[in-house]
């Protein structure tokens, strides 16, 4: 048994490929636990960032700077009454949020956080990701249908049309990136998520800069389509608050509603990680060609620790700026404690064995974080598209450009 557990450590692959159930399970727990935590953190960050865009403060009451707000929200949602409308189709109503949740979490099985940091590496990885993430449209349609109510029905109809039409443009953009992986001596490409990043490593270029500007256009198309795919502003028609009250999840409450939210945020992370893997070099650090050498390697490997120290610094700054009233004593102590924890994590990340293993994950998550920030930024800036305009943009603008990019990529790839 012990051998079985330790045997994986010497292998140089993901636990799924090594066929090691124990480590696969450990990875699954880490990834799914991590995603759940990130979703909660993202919830706080979104409310906070959105508030600062809008000259508000955002959550400030629960914990220092509202840090405990996601936990309070989760507790509230757990204890709320679970309402199933009398006219609803109960089984389908019950199943719909689970489908969305499973679909958006299952995607993380192939997300490559590092050359060996993935649950498994499928040889059809990208196909698996696109396929599973588009299953969530089923959940949306089921939710809208089972609610047996007008607003959810219209919301889910919009959603299914939107998700399906944007998937086409999205797929074309993905294919153009996959084509780029085949530009090697053997001439064979790969669909494996890890393979795609390794191809970028081998070609010494992130695909976003490859055949400039073709790679960039493909990324932009993907980045727009993925916002539509996850039903976020400015494409949030299925849950357009001012039109359809809450769209397909109007009739949901409490825990079931929170599953939709969990699924939505997890899906945002999932599609962002596709974009990062395909175009932004996955776990590769920035400037691998320009700034080479062991000194730069060392410098870039210090980034994770420095980031955590910077976060700790922000916490301590917050401690200094806290009101000095005794009423805030607990909050101040809590913030200082949080800062200490972050600082300690930062120090641990400086240790050489940790540093080397963690930097892949760090760069991957940092790149995903940029996309997550963009999501919030869009939401603060843009009005909402109308349904027909959304379709027009999808079919008449994005799809032709995506096909053009695909064809041009193929032509340039053959010529080069």
């Amino acid at each position: 048994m012990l051998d079985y557990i330790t045997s994986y450590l010497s292998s140089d692959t993901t636990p799924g490929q090594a066929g090691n159930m124990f480590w696969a399970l450990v990875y699954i727990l880490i990834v799914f636990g991590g995603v759940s935590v990130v979703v909660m953190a993202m919830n706080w960050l979104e409310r906070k960032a959105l508030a600062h865009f809008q000259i508000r403060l955002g959550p400030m009451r629960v914990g220092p700077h509202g840090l405990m707000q996601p936990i309070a929200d989760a507790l509230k949602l757990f204890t709320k009454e679970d309402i199933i409308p009398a006219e609803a189709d109960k089984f389908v109503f019950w199943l719909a949020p689970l489908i969305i949740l499973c679909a958006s979490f299952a995607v993380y099985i192939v997300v490559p956080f590092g050359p060996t940091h993935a649950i498994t590496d499928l040889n059809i990885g990208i196909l698996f990701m696109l396929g599973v993430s588009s299953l969530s449209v089923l959940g949306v349609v089921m939710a809208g249908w089972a609610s047996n109510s007008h607003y959810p029905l219209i919301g889910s109809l919009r959603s299914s049309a939107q998700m399906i039409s944007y998937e086409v443009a999205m797929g074309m953009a993905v294919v153009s990136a996959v084509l780029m992986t085949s530009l090697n001596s053997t001439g064979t490409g790969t669909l494996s998520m890890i393979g795609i990043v390794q191809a970028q490593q081998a070609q010494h270029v992130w695909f976003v800069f490859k055949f400039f500007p073709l790679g960039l256009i493909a990324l932009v198309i993907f980045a727009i389509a993925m916002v539509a795919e996850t039903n976020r502003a400015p494409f949030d028609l299925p849950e357009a608050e001012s039109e359809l009250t809450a769209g397909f999840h109007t009739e949901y409450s409490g825990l079931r509603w929170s599953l939709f939210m969990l699924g939505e945020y997890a899906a945002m992370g999932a599609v962002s990680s596709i974009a990062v893997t395909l175009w932004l070099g996955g776990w590769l650090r920035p400037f691998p060609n320009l700034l080479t050498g062991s000194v730069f390697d060392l410098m870039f490997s210090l980034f994770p620790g420095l980031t955590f120290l910077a976060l700790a610094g922000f916490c301590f700054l917050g401690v200094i700026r806290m009101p000095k009233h005794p009423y805030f004593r607990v909050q101040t102590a809590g913030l200082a404690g949080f800062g200490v924890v972050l600082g300690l994590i930062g120090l641990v990340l400086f240790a050489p064995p940790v540093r080397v293993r963690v930097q892949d994950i760090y760069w991957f998550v940092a790149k995903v974080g940029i996309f997550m920030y963009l999501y919030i930024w869009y939401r603060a800036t843009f009005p909402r598209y109308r349904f027909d305009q959304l379709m027009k943009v999808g079919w008449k603008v994005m799809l032709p450009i995506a096909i053009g990019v695909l064809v041009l990529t193929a032509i340039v790839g053959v010529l080069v």
Partner: protein
Amino acid sequence: MTDPTAYLSHLELGQPDKTYLDTNELIINMGPQHPATHGVLRVILKLDGEKVLGTECVIGYLHRGVEKIAEHRTYAMFNPYVDRMDYVAAVSNGLGYCEAVEKLLNVEAPPRARYIRVILTELNRMASHMIWLGTHALDIGAMTPLFYTFRDREEILKIFEKYCGARLTTHAFRIGGCLYELYEGFEQDVKQFLDFVPSKIDEYEELLTTNRIWVERTKNVGKISGADCIALGVTGPVLRASGVKWDIRKAMPYSGYQDFDFEIPIGQNGDTFDRYIVRMQEMRQSLRIIRQAVEAIPTGPIMAKVPKVIKPPVGEVYHSIEAPKGELGYFIVSDGSTQPYRVRVRPPSFVNLQALDLMVRGSMVADVIAVIGTIDIVLGEVDR
């Protein structure tokens, strides 16, 4: 089971296009509890998919019987009630009522009072337009302008609060003039506001006017021609955006508006985008009027000679002013007693709301929201 659409049978609703997919029309009920109906408006929509075949507005959820109350109050006592109709433009309501009663009494407010009235009314017009802009943008999906406009409206409300103690339902004017003299530093406050707000209006325009999605959402949406507007009695920015240059401040000047130099912005297409542009320009014109008024404010009394007990002679009067939302008229019948025999209000929101069906028929569900926002209704005024 009874036909759920039976109560709509008197409406001439359009029929869905017959296609090979035999779609059924859908009746949905929007409101009275809905995030985008600006209060308690209920709209029954008949839809063919996303297309609107027809609408029916159900109003009255905020009916408080303001007009009936007037018959049991003296003229002075009814004055605060009018603030509660269009509560985001309470000063305009008060101005219209006071001027109507003054006309009935055949007195005129002294020049200083008229200037104070103009300044406060124009400030209130800006506050009303700011609320309109914020909520309209929120309906179309842009959250951020709401907070920016509320930030700047706050400065206006601060001036109101310093002047008369109230922020929203101000009851700023009295029959015959104003009750309060301007406070110390009023001029300074207003000038400070005038200097600070143009850049903020630029900020709103930067967020919206050139925003591609905003333009797509508003251009050619809710179109209405000038002739249709006149036929339906639609007034205010909605009328002006359709190319009709009609502003009571110019056409039938009241409260000394003839003294000021300002323009009436008009649009051409009569769509939601033009109405947006017209209102944005109106805000800038209001700034012009306020600046002129503040700089030339005369000295003198602020109250005309009005008897303690107001007993107008037997007769009737109709007086209308240009409220932020359109023509606000008061028709007052006096029987010679201390209480009006009848007060009839011509609220701009109520009349403009009639155009909703004409404007949205044949467009999408999302346009209904945009058009409700662009008509700029306040349900307190619609239902009274």
